[in-house]
């Protein structure tokens, strides 16, 4: 397997220069804020994702954690893609990302939906790393639910 399919430039770039990293309080005091902390018990990677929302729009998605390039870049891409989106749209993206990661490399990603997330297509071919990529997305789902916004389908990875 070609290593550069896994470590795409986009992924390495998000890893070395993460976007929106650090847990933040809500700008708007009317927002519901909730977070979820997820760990990957096999490798010890950890991420906390915090969602601030008025119930319709995800005003902020902030995160912190420690882990490998894949999990940390994935959190950065998640922040880029979903922050400021209407919850319904965010869950469409979430679903598309989960589908991509569960597809064992057989799913062709839609760049219009997934943006930089398409770079993770190669990760789906490495079963041991799929959980790394999904870690922040699963934490996001829990955090969003705790903040009172919808739930996307279960992952089967």
């Amino acid at each position, binding site marked *: *397997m*070609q*290593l550069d399919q*896994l*470590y795409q430039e986009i992924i*390495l770039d998000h890893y070395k220069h993460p976007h929106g990293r650090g847990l933040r309080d809500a700008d708007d005091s009317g927002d519901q804020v909730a977070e979820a902390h997820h760990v990957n018990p*096999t*490798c*010890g*990677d*950890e991420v906390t994702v915090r969602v601030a929302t008025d119930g319709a729009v995800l005003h902020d998605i902030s995160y912190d954690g*420690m*882990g*490998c*390039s*894949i999990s940390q870049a994935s959190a950065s891409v998640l922040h880029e893609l979903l922050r400021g989106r209407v919850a319904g749209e965010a869950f469409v993206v979430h679903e598309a990302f989960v589908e991509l990661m569960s597809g064992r490399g057989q799913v062709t990603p839609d760049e219009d939906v997934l943006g930089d997330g398409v770079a993770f297509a190669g990760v789906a071919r*490495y079963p041991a*790393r799929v959980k*790394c990529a999904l870690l922040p997305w699963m934490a996001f789902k829990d955090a969003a639910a705790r903040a009172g916004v919808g739930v996307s389908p279960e992952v089967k990875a």
Partner: protein
Amino acid sequence: MTSIAIPTGMPQYDDVPRFDVARVRADFPILDREVNGHPLVYLDSANTSHKPRQVLDVLGEHYALHNANVSRSVHTLGTEATEAYEGARAKVAAFLNASSPDEVVFTKNSTEAINIVAYAFSNASLRPDADPRFRLGPGDEVVISEMEHHSNIVPWQLLCERTGATLRWFPVTDSGRLDESGLDDLVTERTKIVSLVHMSNILGTINATSRITARVREVGALLLLDCSQSVPHLPIDVVDLDADYIVFTGHKMCGPTGIGVLWGRGELLAAMPPVFGGGSMIETVTMARSTFAAPPARFEAGTPPIAEAVALGAAVDYLTGVGMPAIQWHEKELTAYALDTLGSVRDLRIFGPTVPVGRGGTISFALGDVHPHDVGQVLDSLGVQVRVGHHCAKPVCSRFGVPAMTRASFYLYTTTEEIDALVAGLEQVRKVFD
């Protein structure tokens, strides 16, 4: 590698037992395969070892020619299977210098072996007539260390929760040694059992146990040594070690998965209540109650892993044929070489002892701030198989302030060329992440 002239009259390097690594490698079919277009460089033997043809053949032959259940058949196949199974027990006993094969209990693995001891304590604690050495309650203490594999932490945490006993532990020093400075305060008249790792699966440290053993005897406690990482790699003599129990697993010593060993002093095993109930472990059964067989059968309920035990016997034969002192020396040389060469890699931090003394051929490290998962992934693309993560020893990672480590571990078939391939691979890791 650093070489020092040894004065004449002293034992010389050439005096130590050695073997031909190329010939040993020829016994392991898997070493011929490629991974991702590169020759396999397997540096994960602390996780599981490979199996020589001699062991694979015995495993296959058992099923092909002698398959039957043990300890219950009068027919020929049953007798052959029983003889092979009990023969394997005798081989393991001789390998450990145990006083009797009856001191060898076959288990699934080290984890199960430790749990059997922990649950025997638990069961004894519920029975007023049980041997007081195994009875635990509030005020009693169990002592482990910060260096343990999760399998030697969690069963004792659970035991303490069930009985109200207190769990205490030895700390680890900055150089990755067991900190024995508080020994007399830690191991006291309140201590019922001390359970320690003999060789760390993550730091490679081999613990010198004689001071601890002396203290354990002084206070009348029991001592269990987790020898999962030492039995495969060094000559182990249970008389010399003077422990009460040792545990280890077959798959790390050229044997199959699914078979492990609890060795216990015969008198202790005989005093322990059973843990798993079922067939083979009984003396007689009525609808109201049962009486139990003597050890080792008392602790082997149900049909055991027969073929696996027989193949473990073959692994013991194989290791004995190569020679445990020679294997120990081979790994000592590899460790010295690896510590030297890894020490020359820029930004590489070794966790654990950095001298090849009182340690085995398992070396964990960090490469700058590149996450171990990423290190392992790039190495894998070059055919180099290392373990990454917390190695089922999270407290050790926490002790050294990291969430995970990269670990290279050696065995009798490992070569210095493979260590060179690791070092070359680490340069490649740096290129991707710098």
